[in-house]
């Protein structure tokens, strides 16, 4: 069975500082990994994905994520946080042979001025 874990319920960062939102996964085989973001009163927005290739994936709004197979991690990062990055972030995994996404429980990111 596939699953992802987001060990932090909340991450607090000062504006301008780098941010990391952690995600680890458990799958058999090669996973498809995704990050989504939910801003207040909005739907889930796709940020980035890892399918294959370069372990560092760049996505929307200056976010990037690093796929680490040995540590089974897919942490989301941004070099300089903005207050507007404050939102709920979800990591998800998908079996390449299927379509359903398995989500983590989400991490609330709060960026303070």
């Amino acid at each position, binding site marked *: 069975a596939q699953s992802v874990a987001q060990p932090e319920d909340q991450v607090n960062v000062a504006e301008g500082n780098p941010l990391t939102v952690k995600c680890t996964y458990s799958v058999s085989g090669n996973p498809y990994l995704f990050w989504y973001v939910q801003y207040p009163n909005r739907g889930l927005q796709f940020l980035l994905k890892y*399918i294959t290739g370069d372990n560092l994936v760049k996505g929307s709004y200056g976010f990037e994520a690093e796929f680490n197979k040995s540590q089974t991690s897919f942490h989301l990062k941004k070099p300089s946080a903005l207050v507007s990055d404050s939102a709920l972030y979800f990591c998800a995994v998908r079996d390449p042979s299927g379509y359903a996404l398995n989500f983590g429980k989400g991490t609330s990111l709060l960026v303070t001025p």
Partner: protein
Amino acid sequence: EAGVTQFPSHSVIEKGQTVTLRCDPISGHDNLYWYRRVMGKEIKFLLHFVKESKQDESGMPNNRFLAERTGGTYSTLKVQPAELEDSGVYFCASSQVGGLEAFFGQGTRLTVV
């Protein structure tokens, strides 16, 4: 291009009543998915349509839930009769055939009292 739209955005109903949620996918997307997030927990997969056919309904919690996608366009998810534990946010998503990322709607927040 319009994104995935869901109606209503909020619904408050009494236990035992019936509620129908609607999802309009992105035009041309054959894949349509329903997910649910119960407060504070993971977003869980409910089912997957390919056009009008149910491809995978393994996540449907019980027979009080009925999803349809007549004509392969919009979809409805009916809960009858609603129970307290059905409260949560119901997300719809769509993707193209072979598409790697799914696009989500803003969700319907269902509260059963």
